[in-house]
C-alpha cells in the first residue's frame, strides 16, 4: 500500500516536524442561526492518529464532514496534501470546483460512517471494488485480488459473496472500512464508527482500526470509545460548543486535562 506512511505508533512523539497532510484552517459552519462550527483549525501530520472526543452537539461530525466536503463550510479552508478541498488555486485566489472535479479530490480521502452506508444492492466484494474500478478506473482483475486481500485482513475473507443485509453490524462496519481502505486514501475519517453497534460487536471493529493505525494509516476518528483513544491515539482533541477546547497527548487531555470543560466531560464519561 503506497499511501500508508510508515511511522512509529504510540504516544511517545506526538508532534512531528512534518508538513501537515491535513490542514483545516478556521472552518465555520452554521445551520440557520445555530453556529455548529466556529473557526475550527486543526492540523494532522502523515501517519498520525487523532481522536476527536466531546459531548454530542459539539460539532465533531460536522467538522469531519467539512474535511471531505460532504458539508460545505461557510468559511475557512481545508487543505489536503497541498490542495484546497473544493477549490482550485489560481492567481492567489481559490476558484470553486465543479461537483465532478470535487469528486476526484474526494477519491484521495476515505470515510467510515456511523451507519456503515454499505451499498445494499452490491455484494461485499462489489462494495469494496466499486471505488477502485469505477472511480480510479483500475483493471478489475488486479482490484479483485487486492479487494480480497483487504477483506481477508478485516477478517471477512469468507463473506465476499454475501450481501450487506446478511452480515452483523460489526461485519458491515469492517466491510465499510475495507471499502475505504481499498481506495488507498491519504487518510481515513471515522465518524463514530462503533456508535451504532451492539456492545459485543464494538471490539472487532476497534481491533481492525487499531491494526490500521499500527500500519501507519493517518486517521481522524470521532469516537466515544475512550479506551480506544487511550490505546491508539497520538493526539486527542476535545471539542465542545463548535470549537476545540484543548488538544494534546493522551496524558495531557485524558489524564491531566487543563480545562474545566474537559474535566467535566471526562468525569461524566468515565464515571
Amino acid at each position, binding site marked *: 500500500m503506497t499511501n500508508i506512511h510508515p511511522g512509529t505508533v504510540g504516544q511517545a512523539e506526538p508532534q512531528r516536524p512534518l508538513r501537515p497532510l491535513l490542514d483545516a484552517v478556521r472552518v465555520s459552519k452554521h445551520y440557520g442561526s445555530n453556529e455548529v462550527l466556529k473557526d475550527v483549525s486543526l492540523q494532522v501530520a502523515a501517519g498520525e492518529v487523532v481522536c476527536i472526543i466531546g459531548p454530542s452537539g459539539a460539532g465533531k461530525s460536522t467538522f469531519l464532514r467539512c474535511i471531505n466536503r460532504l458539508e460545505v463550510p461557510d468559511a475557512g479552508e481545508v487543505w489536503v496534501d497541498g490542495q484546497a478541498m473544493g477549490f482550485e488555486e489560481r492567481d492567489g485566489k481559490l476558484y470553486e470546483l465543479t461537483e465532478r472535479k470535487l469528486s476526484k479530490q*474526494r477519491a484521495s480521502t476515505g470515510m467510515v460512517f456511523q451507519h456503515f452506508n454499505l451499498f*445494499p*444492492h452490491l455484494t461485499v466484494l462489489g462494495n469494496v471494488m466499486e471505488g477502485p474500478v469505477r472511480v480510479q478506473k483500475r483493471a478489475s482483475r488486479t482490484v479483485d485480488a487486492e479487494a480480497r486481500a483487504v477483506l481477508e485482513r478485516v477478517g471477512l475473507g469468507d463473506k465476499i*459473496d454475501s*450481501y450487506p443485509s*446478511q452480515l452483523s453490524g460489526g461485519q458491515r462496519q469492517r466491510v465499510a472500512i475495507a471499502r475505504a481502505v481499498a481506495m488507498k486514501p491519504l487518510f481515513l475519517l471515522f465518524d463514530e464508527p462503533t456508535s451504532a453497534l451492539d456492545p459485543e460487536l464494538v471490539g472487532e471493529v476497534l481491533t481492525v482500526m487499531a491494526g490500521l493505525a499500527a500500519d501507519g494509516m493517518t486517521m481522524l476518528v470521532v469516537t466515544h470509545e475512550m479506551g480506544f483513544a487511550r490505546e491508539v491515539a497520538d493526539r486527542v482533541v476535545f471539542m465542545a460548543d463548535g470549537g476545540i477546547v484543548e488538544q494534546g497527548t493522551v496524558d495531557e487531555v485524558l489524564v491531566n486535562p487543563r480545562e474545566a470543560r474537559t474535566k467535566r466531560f471526562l468525569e461524566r464519561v468515565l464515571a
Partner: protein
Amino acid sequence: MSTPSARESVRELLPQVRLRHWGRWVIAAVILVILGALAYGASQGDISWRDIPYYVISPIILQGLVNTIILAVAAQVSAVILGVIIALMRISENPVAKWFAAAYTWLFRGLPVLLQILLWYNLALIFPRLQLGIPFTDVVFVDLSTNAVMTTFVAAFLGLMLNESAYMAEIVRAGLNSVDRGQIEAAQSIGETPLQRMWRIVLPQAMRVIIPPTGNDFINMLKGTAMASVIGYVELIRAANNIASFNLQVMETLIAAAFWYMVIVSVASVGQSYLERSFDRSDRARGGPTRRARRRLARDLVTPPLVRSHP
C-alpha cells in the same frame, strides 16, 4: 428431547372432530348458482359465439392489436424518459427547473387524457402551420402543415405520453427519495461523480420502488389506448367497430377485442413480476436457497412434531 419423562402425561389421546365450516359451503354454493345462472343467461343471448374465434384471428383485429401495442409501448417508453427528466428537475437545486417541473406535473396530470388527445388532434384549428425558425425574422428552418404532422397516431401518442410522463415523474421522484441519503454520501466518500452516484448507486436501489407502479401504469396504458379510437386511430376497439360497421356483429367483435386485451395485460403482468424479482436481489445471496425452498424450510420449522402416544 430433554423433557424429563416424569412430566409426560399418561392420558390416552382421544379422537378429535374438526370444526365443519358450514358457512363456507353455503357461500360457495351461492356463488356457483349465480355463475350458472349467468352462464345460462349468456347462452340465451342473441350472440353467435362460434364467430368470435374467427374475429380473434381476423387480419383487421390483429392489425388493431399491433397498433394498440405500438401506441402503448411508444407512449410508455417516452413517458418514462420524460418522467425521469422531469423528476430530476423537480429534485434539482435550480428553482426555475423545480417550479417548471411542478407546473408540468400539475397541468398534464390534471387534464383528462381524452381531452388532451382531442386538443392535440384539433391543433390545426388554431395553428394551421407548424414552423420552426427565429422569431421576428424571416428565418424558417421547418414549415409543415399541422394536419400532416398531427396524424391520429401522433395526437394519441402525445395525449397519452404527456399525461403518463407526469405520473412517471412522481413515481421516479418517490423512487429517488426512497434511497437513503447515506447511500449518496458513501458514494461521494469514495469519489463517485454525480452521474456515477445516480447510475451506479441511486437508480438501482430506486428501481425497487419505481418498477411496481410503472408496471401498473403500463397495464393502464395498454387499456388507455382505447381512447385513441375516438379520433379514429385503428387500435383494437376501432378495428372491432370497423368490422361491426359492415356486419353489425358489434358484441362478437368487441368480445374478440376483449380477448386480446386480457392476453396482453396478462403478459405485461408476468413481465412486471419478472422485472421486480430481478431488481430485488439485495437480500438474497447468489446460489442461496430459492424462494420456494425457503418457504418449505420455514414451514418445516414451524410444523410441530407429530404427537405420539406412548402405549
